[in-house]
C-alpha cells in the first residue's frame, strides 16, 4: 500500500500565500484602522485638556514685594521673580503712578522678552514676537497667546505682586 501525497502547488505559492489584489485591500483596511486610532488619540487629547482645565484649581499666590514706589524711573524697567524664584518678570513704570508687570517668558518658545521703550512695546528677540506694553496682547509675530500679566498693587510706598492673570482683558 502506497501512501498518496496530497497535491501541492508550486513552492512560491506556499511561501507567498496572499494574492496581490487581496493585499491591496488589506493595506487600505489597515490604513483606515490606523487613521481611526489616530483620531481616537486626538479625541483623548481633547478630553484630557477638558478634564485638566475642569479639575485643576488655580493656586492662590502670595503677595510679594517687588520694588519701592520710586525705585524705578518713569519708562524704566525692573526685573523680579514671581511667583517662584525661577519665574522672571518685567516691571515697567508707565507713568508717575502707573505700573504694569508681565512674565518675561515669551509665549512662543520661552525666550526672554524685553521692553523696547522707543517703540513702547515688549519684544522677543528670538523670533520677533511683539507684545503690547499696556496689556500684554500679541501685536505681531509667531506667539499665539498674550504675555501673562502680573497683578501689581501699591501698599505703603511699596509695590507688591499679588497674582497672575492670563486674560489681557481682565
Amino acid at each position: 500500500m502506497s501512501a498518496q501525497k496530497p497535491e501541492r502547488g508550486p513552492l512560491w505559492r506556499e511561501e507567498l500565500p496572499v494574492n496581490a489584489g487581496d493585499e491591496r485591500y488589506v493595506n487600505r483596511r489597515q490604513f483606515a484602522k490606523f487613521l481611526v486610532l489616530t483620531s481616537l488619540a486626538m479625541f483623548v487629547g481633547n478630553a484630557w485638556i477638558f478634564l485638566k482645565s475642569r479639575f485643576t484649581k488655580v493656586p492662590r499666590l502670595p503677595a510679594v514685594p517687588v520694588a519701592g514706589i520710586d525705585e524705578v524711573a518713569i519708562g524704566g524697567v525692573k526685573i523680579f521673580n514671581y511667583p517662584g524664584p525661577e519665574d522672571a518678570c518685567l516691571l515697567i513704570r508707565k507713568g508717575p503712578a502707573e505700573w504694569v508687570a508681565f512674565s518675561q517668558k515669551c509665549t512662543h518658545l520661552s525666550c526672554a522678552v524685553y521692553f523696547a521703550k522707543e517703540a513702547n512695546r515688549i519684544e522677543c528677540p528670538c523670533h520677533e514676537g511683539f507684545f503690547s506694553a499696556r496689556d500684554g496682547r500679541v501685536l505681531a509675530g509667531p506667539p499665539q497667546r498674550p504675555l501673562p500679566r502680573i497683578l501689581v498693587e501699591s501698599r505703603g510706598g511699596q509695590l507688591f505682586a499679588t497674582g497672575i492673570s492670563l486674560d489681557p482683558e481682565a
Partner: protein
Amino acid sequence: MKARRLAAERRGLTAIDGVIALIVLLLVVQMWLLTATLETVLAGHAEAALPAAIVSGVLLLSAAGLALFVRRIDRDARA
C-alpha cells in the same frame, strides 16, 4: 467572469480610496482642533475645552463610521 471580478475589485478600491481621503480630512480638522484648543486653554479661556472635546468626539465617530464603511465595501467587492 474574471474580468467582471477585476472590474468590481477596481471599483471597490476607488471607493475605498475616496473614503480614506475623507477620513484623512476629518483627522486634519481634529488635529487643528486639538492645537487650537490647547492654545485657547493656555491663554486662560477654559470654557472652550468642552465644546472642542464634543466636536472631536463627533469627528471620531464619523471617522469610525467611515472605517466600517471601508470594511463593508471590502467585503462586498471580494464576495
